[in-house]
């Protein structure tokens, strides 16, 4: 049967979310002839519609529905209703992401075994290994067109990269290059080559950066097996007396509640919305929310240990010109506890335009200490720290007791406290980043605090045992066999790497598993 699919069609797979996880899973299933209805809370903007303007683009793409925050993280003070900078639109955060596509390291799948028990950390080994995921990483790299894989040339280095590289050489770092980027260095897969426009975070107007919006989704739609429903906000997942899920209640563009019946439901709304939906689907049979017999739904929220370092030089840099994140140093990504922390971090080039620099350089800051930094905006270079943070049960998504959204659904509260290991890592990275810029002549450096989270992970984590997590190694709920989690919320731990490549790899692997289980009539 061809789309649009009937609401009462209970043979479809309903996927909630159209980003890296949901968008990939949807296309992979459609390619196998499986009918998919993809519910996306946001609108559909094609890439020509993206805006080279930070605030206007934010208004177009960002998820700005109210959320609340608590905990000792600075975001809770500076941006109390914006814990995350993620996207509400078809394509999800693959419209906004920078494109960095790194494989996890072997030890990052075995953190409990490698790091040992840490006070205040809820570490656990993944139920899969790097070796098991490698074939899927290879497929994902080919799908995304990752530079420096599959004989794809690297991107040329922009000014910001050249400053980073010069400093990396001075510090003796060995692995510094323009990155493994899902941004075309030459035309590939019907997508343009990068034109060094900047504004990667605002959606690539050339379509040079991989996004499910203009790769997976149209390919899936071309099969006649994928229907994307924009402006469809999932509210609740229904189940029957046997405990199997049966459909998804969503608010349509006019705010009317609909129910799409389903054979299988896959949740891929990012690590705040996915647990929110499972928790909001509580019933008399599942009083703590769906798939939550372990009590782990919403817990172990991770956001990567981040921060930025900006340096000011006596000569111009123009860091904002060109690909935002095509520059990486990997030397600190190793696990080397002699540095005073477990796990590691990447250093990646980063630039903000003047409007966002003013908002994020030192939120709440004012006076000349702040403004003399901005005065030298065109003499600035910038880098982002992205490192492994510790999962903590206390860091969690909960349903707000009082505040509800337009559909009457409780908003999510995001609680986060840094673990001592996170703080030690961030401070180490600040020192290294500052030293790097000073080595090439920076006259001033800025240890800039983390932005609202872009890498939201871990709130429906994978585990070998049902008691330790929410889903198994296929992202299938331990408690409900026709319910899956397909986004970064299934990460057992976060690794030091930008998560998208791993999310896509897991989605490809999950699609194989779902198709196999459907053929075998097990689900």
């Amino acid at each position: 049967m061809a789309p649009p699919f009937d609401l009462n069609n209970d043979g479809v797979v309903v996927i909630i979310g159209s980003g890296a996880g949901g968008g990939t899973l949807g296309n992979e299933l459609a390619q196998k002839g499986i009918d998919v209805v993809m519910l996306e809370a946001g609108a559909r903007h094609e890439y020509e519609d993206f805006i080279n303007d930070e605030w206007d683009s934010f208004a177009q793409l960002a998820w700005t529905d109210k959320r609340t925050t608590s905990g000792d993280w600075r975001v809770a003070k500076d941006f109390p209703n914006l814990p995350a900078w993620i996207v509400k639109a078809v394509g999800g955060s693959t419209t906004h992401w920078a494109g960095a596509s790194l494989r996890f390291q072997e030890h990052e799948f075995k953190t409990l075994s490698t790091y040992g028990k840490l006070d205040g950390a809820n570490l656990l080994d993944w139920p899969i290994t790097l070796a098991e995921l490698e074939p899927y990483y290879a497929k994902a790299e080919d799908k995304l067109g990752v530079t420096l894989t599959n004989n794809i040339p690297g991107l040329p280095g922009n000014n910001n990269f050249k400053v980073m590289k010069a400093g990396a050489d001075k510090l003796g770092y060995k692995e510094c290059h323009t990155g493994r980027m899902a941004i075309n260095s030459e035309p590939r897969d019907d997508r343009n080559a990068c034109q060094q426009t900047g504004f990667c975070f605002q959606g690539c107007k050339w379509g040079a950066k991989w996004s499910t919006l203009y790769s997976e989704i149209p390919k899936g739609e071309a099969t006649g097996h994928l229907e994307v429903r924009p402006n469809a906000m999932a509210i609740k997942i229904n189940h029957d007396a046997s405990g199997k899920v049966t459909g998804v209640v969503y608010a349509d563009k006019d705010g009317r509640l609909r129910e799409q019946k389903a054979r299988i439901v896959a949740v891929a709304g990012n690590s705040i919305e996915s647990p929110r939906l499972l928790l909001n689907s509580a019933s008399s049979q599942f009083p703590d929310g769906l798939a939550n017999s372990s009590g782990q739904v919403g817990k172990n929220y991770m956001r990567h240990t981040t921060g930025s370092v900006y340096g000011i030089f006596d000569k111009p840099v123009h860091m904002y010109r060109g690909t935002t994140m095509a520059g990486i140093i990997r030397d600190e990504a190793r696990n080397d506890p002699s540095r005073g922390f477990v796990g590691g971090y990447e250093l990646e080039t980063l630039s903000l335009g003047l409007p966002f620099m003013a908002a994020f350089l030192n939120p709440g800051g004012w006076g000349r200490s702040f403004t003399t930094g901005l005065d030298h905006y065109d003499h600035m270079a910038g880098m982002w720290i992205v490192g492994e943070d510790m999962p903590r049960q206390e860091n969690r998504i909960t349903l707000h007791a009082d505040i509800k959204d337009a559909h009457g659904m409780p908003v999510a509260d995001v609680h986060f406290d840094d673990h001592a290991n996170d703080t030690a890592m961030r401070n180490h990275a600040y020192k290294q980043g500052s030293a790097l810029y000073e080595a090439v002549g920076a006259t001033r450096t800025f240890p800039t605090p983390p932005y609202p989270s872009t890498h939201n992970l871990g709130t429906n984590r994978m585990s070998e045992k049902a008691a330790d997590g929410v889903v198994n190694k296929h992202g299938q709920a331990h408690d409900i066999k026709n319910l899956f989690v397909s986004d970064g919320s299934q990460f057992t731990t976060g690794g030091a790497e930008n998560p998208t490549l791993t999310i896509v790899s897991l989605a490809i692997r999950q699609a194989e598993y779902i198709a196999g289980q459907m053929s075998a009539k097990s689900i």
Partner: protein
Amino acid sequence: MVTIYESKPVHETKPALSRRELLKRGGVGALLVISGSAVISPEHAWGLETSALKPETMATLIQMARDIYPHDQVPDKYYAIAVKAHDEQAGKDPAHKDLIEKGIADLDLKSGKGGYTGLGWEEQRVAVLRDIQDTPFFQAVRGGLVVGLYNQKEVWPIFGYEGESYSKGGYMARGFDDIEWL
């Protein structure tokens, strides 16, 4: 409504407070002239008409904005544009009008008999601002400036930020890798 318009030379506008009088009072306010319901910069040929807030309040707000985010190379006009939203909001929301008028009155009170703009040194004015930096008034003014000042496309070139680049074909042929001093 608040409009920014090109002003007539000061001798034609017959300001309620002459430039000479303002100069006599001292302080940075001397650069801005109050005329009827408008704040006028005779030096730079612009004016800001207020409708809800007192023009004196607006003139002090402009100085306060500069003291919060001082950029010596950015003309007053852009600070005026950045704070004019408070006049618009005050027209719609009496509580906001109250917040701003009382906030400025309090600022003047804390600044001694010459008022806030009567304090000649930025350090003196900043010391007063430090006293009130946790108040809703200060946070409303500072928070509004983050977007109000820095999101004006006209100020971007002053900072060397080039803005939109897609229509120009990006920076592929326009200097994405033109750094030479390394």
